[in-house]
């Protein structure tokens, strides 16, 4: 599933559509601590987190995450929105808990493999 296809599922509310939405999502990744994400986020992941500040966007960009999904109804602050635009990263949000959001992506991905 590409970033564009994930956006088009309509499961999440889109905050910013970034560049290269034709990239494939490799897997969902859940983490709220930046340096753990920095060390472990798989390339091309859909990173699900409740941290809606600009540092999340910086880490997503440096680790080549495919997109950021803010869970639990968290909205990005103004600086984070700016960073998303500047770094051209796709950011979405959802009221779902982190696990549920990641599971939803995982289901779509494993459905493709089947």
């Amino acid at each position, binding site marked *: 599933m590409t970033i564009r296809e994930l956006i088009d599922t309509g499961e999440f509310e889109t905050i910013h559509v970034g560049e290269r939405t034709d990239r494939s999502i490799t897997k969902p990744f859940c983490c709220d*601590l*930046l*340096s753990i994400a*920095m060390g472990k986020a798989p390339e091309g992941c859909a990173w699900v987190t409740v941290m809606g500040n600009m*540092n999340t966007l*910086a880490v997503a960009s*440096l680790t080549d995450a495919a997109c950021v999904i803010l869970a639990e109804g968290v909205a990005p602050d103004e600086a984070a929105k700016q960073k998303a635009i500047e770094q051209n990263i796709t950011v979405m949000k959802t009221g779902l808990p982190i696990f549920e959001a990641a599971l939803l992506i995982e289901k779509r991905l494993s459905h493709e493999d089947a």
Partner: protein
Amino acid sequence: MDVITFHYTISPDDFTRAGEASSDVKSKLKKMGVTPEAVRKVAIAMYEGEINMVIHAKGGEITVHISTERIEMVLEDVGPGIPDIDLAMQAGYSTAPDAVRSLGFGAGMGLPNMKKYSDEMEIHTVIGEGTTIRMVVNL
């Protein structure tokens, strides 16, 4: 052999700009055609060092030297220094204040990530004077 050098000044306590130097190096390396793996290693190692300078020191200077064989990053700050390097290097050890923990920092994984993603790392620190960290990623 030719070495290209980039220099950055890192402001203390400025989270709106934190990470910009690392992002800039990342995009420059990509444009130069450095392998994605090496770009990722440099980006991770340098970002952690850059953020530490913002949070734990009073900002500082980062110099990046790029040759065909290696990328060397030298991060110099005039912060408080690191009293016990072995302790600071331990995964999970952090003195990050609550204000930055609430942003997602403070897992105590920054220095371990720097070690893991660089091929060489040296820390030189003097209490009350500052810290210099040199990291190398081989190409």
